């Protein structure tokens, strides 16, 4: 299947305020696209438009040529999984029970648990390294482990497209690298991933392409090296940075200094 996300002249307003304006964007199968932009630039809203949680005011989102807003919820959930920034859970679930919830869109109301459901859950636990923790309570896990549990739940959905909203927020350095390494491995196996990032260095290092949003508009799209220039970052974030690069990678370093009360760019 040549699954592909296509966003066509998408606009969205919330309480009379335009949050997204005329977004056009295509995501190829097996690619990791990073959405970057300051707070309030519309990253989360765009992800929710793609996931069908919000409906566009104008324009449309297509999943493999079919309009997302017209797909049945279960049909959509079999092909696209999405993780929220903060996922809360009512009640005390074990890791395995939570991951099993990912099979909901694949099962009828009264259908029994099938071998293929079991093997999908097993695969998801294995690829996220959670087999040892399968019978633990979610409440006993660290932040990084929890994030992996929700990723495993999304993988149990066996989606073709995965949306991640700041997957590394609140994670320490080791867990950040671990989680993104895991996601990268999934992309190598053909998963399409769209992820919102705050950390520009992580976005640069792990994504194939970067889409920069500013005040609801798509202002730049391309390879990390092409998009993440000092000029663009200054115009979008109003922060001066220095970009250091060598053959293999590059680093973005803010030139901020502490001036009594506020962090300002020099």
């Amino acid at each position, binding site marked *: 299947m040549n699954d592909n996300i296509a966003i066509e002249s998408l606009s969205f307003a919330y309480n009379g305020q335009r949050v997204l304006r005329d977004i056009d964007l295509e995501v190829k199968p097996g690619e990791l696209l990073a959405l970057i932009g300051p707070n309030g630039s519309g990253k989360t809203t765009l992800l*929710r438009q793609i*996931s*069908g*949680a919000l409906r566009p005011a104008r324009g449309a989102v297509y999943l493999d040529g079919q309009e997302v807003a017209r797909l*049945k*919820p*279960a*049909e*959509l*959930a*079999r092909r696209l*999984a*999405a993780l*929220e920034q903060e*996922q*809360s*859970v*009512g*009640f*005390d*679930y*074990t890791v395995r*029970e939570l991951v*099993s*919830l*990912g099979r*909901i*869109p694949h*099962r009828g*109301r*009264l259908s029994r648990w099938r071998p293929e459901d079991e093997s999908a859950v097993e695969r998801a636990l294995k690829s996220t390294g959670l087999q040892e923790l399968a*019978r*633990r*309570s979610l*409440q*006993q896990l660290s932040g990084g482990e929890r994030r992996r549990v929700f990723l495993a739940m999304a993988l149990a*959905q066996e989606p073709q497209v995965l949306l991640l909203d700041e997957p590394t927020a609140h994670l320490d350095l080791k867990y950040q690298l671990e989680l993104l390494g895991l996601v990268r491995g999934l992309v190598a196996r053909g998963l399409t991933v769209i992820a919102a990032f705050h950390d520009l260095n992580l976005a640069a290092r792990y994504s194939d392409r970067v889409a920069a949003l500013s005040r609801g508009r798509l202002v730049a799209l391309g390879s990390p090296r092409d998009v993440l220039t000092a000029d663009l970052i200054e115009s979008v974030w109003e922060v001066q940075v220095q970009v250091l690069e060598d053959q293999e990678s590059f680093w973005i370093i803010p030139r901020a200094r502490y001036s009594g009360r506020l962090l300002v760019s020099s």
Partner: protein
Amino acid sequence: MTPHLRRARPMVIFPTLAVGLLASLAVGVAVGPVAISPGESLRIILAQLGLGGVGALDAAHRLIITQIRLPRALTGALIGLILGLSGTVMQGIFRNPLASPYLLGIASGASAGAALVIVLHWQLGGMGLPLGAFLGSTLAVISVYRLGMRAGRTSPYGLILAGIALGALFSALTSFLITLSSGTQLREIVFWLMGGLGRSNWHYLRLLTPVALGGAALVFALSRDLNALALGETGARHLGIEPEQLRRFLLALVTLLTGAAVAISGTIGFVGLITPHALRLIVGPDHRLLLPATALAGAAFLVLSDTLARTLLSPVELPVGIITAFVGAPFFLYLLVSSRPEGSI
């Protein structure tokens, strides 16, 4: 602290609960102020079903078993089943183990309706009290639902606040009716408020059975959807479940079920709060197991509590709500203090 969460195996827990329910029904039928041996009770029931002769059986004992204890035990089982299931559904909808079937004003609405019928002497051929209670509870929930909507959607927060406010209003109405009532009416209202199975009969049971079993079947069919709701509004939608439609349908179902139950028994507390909470600790939060487990456990719990209520101070009969509260409240406190280091609330 054990690193793993323990879960009872379905192959163990369901037979145990089923046997427990049958045993509680047997105790409920056999135990009472008039001593009738379990063997004789069984022979009477078999004879009633056309299996075995009537000749050798004591006529008074037959009457006690078939017209009083059996319909009462069965009514208790169905109402316990309804309260257990409704509590589980409400806790699932609100993602909160403190939710009960009475959260949205069903109890206070039913109480006001029942008090009104008692004060105004509306008999309606014996159906006045259940009808008044049922209409009161539905009216309360519909009002709460209308007032608790936010921008055309059900907001759990809005519903709970509207439930508290309207509950207070209906309770004030009940108190007002109590001050207007005569001595006998007062006693009748107070007993109704405390809840009991003393009004059980075959006629009510015939009305209750299809509601309880049909409602239970519908709730079971939605257990997968309730599981998705544990992830919240957006989480459920990402799994392909529309939370809004689901909540509306489930709230309507709980109102019908609990309304029918309180119409017969009055407001019996704690069954709908404790049963889901306790069973969740045993079978886990998966509604595919939790719902049938709470149905069986709620039924057995209420039948046993009612047997205690009838026999503890015999021949004086205690309202069963006192027993469920005496058992339920300490148990609830025990759970609160002991079970969860971080708390799942």
